[in-house]
């Protein structure tokens, strides 16, 4: 009993009883005047791209939970928290030529070390080549633990400018197809998404003559069998 009391008394004296953690912090006192504190800036790096590029960013931390945000002229472009291994951040983004800001921070706003990289994303091999009006083409999107890893691509050649309906359909009620139209390393318009699982992703797009890439994935990252069609819009 005496030893127990002595231990507790010593801990109390050291300020460790209850919470050891908080005792190392400055106090915020209830009903006291406001305390002024300086919030430091997080690391912000400038990335300059000479040409449109799909950039793969990785933020890897061994002592924290790295987060990543990409800005262009201060405006939000993309961000990620945990798409890399473990709690590391990873994202890919099609970026136009220009100057970007890459911000790294920790999820809990702690002081951590982050290894940051930006590389040209490796190409994804085309699973098929399509022309408007061709029969439906069967494809299989792979399972992946983040968006790009779960994607496959289809090459599309448009000979005549016009409006075309792009469709990725599935008979699997657990799949939710998504189509990203890419031309010249730039995303064209919004991503075409299914309204809900088990439904097709379909939309009409005005396309000029030329070569396109349709990046297709199952929104929830699971492997999925789909058919892809491109038909002249009526």
């Amino acid at each position, binding site marked *: 009993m005496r*030893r127990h009391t*002595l*231990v507790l008394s*010593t*801990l109390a004296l*050291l300020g*460790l009883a*209850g*919470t*050891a*953690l*908080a*005792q*190392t*912090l*400055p*106090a*915020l006192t*209830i*009903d*006291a*005047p*406001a*305390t*002024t*504190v*300086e*919030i*430091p*800036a*997080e*690391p*912000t*790096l*400038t*990335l*300059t*791209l000479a040409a449109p*590029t799909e950039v793969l960013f990785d933020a890897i*931390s061994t002592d*924290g939970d*790295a987060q990543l*945000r990409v800005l262009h002229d201060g405006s939000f472009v993309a961000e990620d928290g945990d798409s890399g291994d473990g709690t590391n951040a990873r994202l890919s983004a099609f970026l136009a030529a220009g100057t970007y800001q*890459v*911000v*790294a*921070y920790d999820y*809990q*706003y*702690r*002081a*951590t*070390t*982050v*290894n*940051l*990289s*930006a*590389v*040209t994303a490796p190409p994804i091999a085309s699973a098929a080549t399509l022309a408007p009006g061709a029969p439906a083409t069967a494809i299989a999107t792979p399972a992946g633990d983040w968006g790009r890893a779960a994607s496959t691509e289809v090459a599309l050649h448009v000979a005549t400018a016009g409006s075309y309906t792009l469709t990725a359909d599935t008979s699997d009620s657990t799949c939710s197809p998504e189509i990203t139209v890419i031309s010249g390393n730039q995303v064209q318009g919004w991503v075409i998404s299914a309204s809900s699982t088990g439904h097709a992703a379909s939309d009409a797009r005005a396309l000029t003559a030329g070569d396109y890439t349709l990046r297709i994935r199952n929104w929830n990252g699971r492997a999925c069998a789909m058919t892809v069609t491109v038909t002249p819009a009526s």
Partner: protein
Amino acid sequence: MHSTTRHIVSLVLGLSLVACGGGETEATTPPPSSAAPTTVAEPTTITLDAPAITVHTVAAPRFSLVVAHPGELQLDATGMPRDVQLTVLDNNGWNVASDGDSGDGLDARLATFLAPATYTVRVHEYNHVAATAHVSARALTAFTPAATVAAGAPPATVVSPAGDWDRAASSEIAITVATAGNYRITAVAADSSTCIPYITLIQNDAVLTTNSYGGPNNSALIDRALTPGNYTLRLRDSSYRACSHVVTVAAQP
């Protein structure tokens, strides 16, 4: 070394290790060293296809907030034109409450019921840029109840005011329960096409539960076993509009 002293030292060292990042989600900054730190300039550019570079994220300012008695506190973090954010964490590093812009402009403001304990208050800037923040905490006084409702009594009609944050848009009702049992508390907006009630059941300065959309036609509903005593129902519109609500407390079979 004396056995008791050895035990104390071991325990203190163990706790110190925990305090220095041995466990949960919050880690502390190590104590300053007597040696002058080596300053290494952080990189400011990142080059496409170059090897990875190393950067160091910075710790956001943290405070210790000691709450001696249960009660509702208001915390403010101002820093315009920057966008200061505010988070209250418990002793295990879990998020208790947080806010971004409920104060004036981009300032952060929150009200939360806290049990006696030591909490950590953290401030950071939304866009991760440097900012000067002014942080304060104050004890809030209780609302004057707009009505008192007993279980089984006729419904009470209560108006929640318009407000620019949740507490400012709230009214309170006193609820008295004489007999232990299961009760259903409902709040139905007079104009259910516009107003969506959000209710919070409070007892002894602690939140028991909250609800919105729990009942039909956008009404709020709480089913709960209640012991005899006094409760408070805080009531507001989900979008902080001025709204009239009909509140009923009924015993359930």
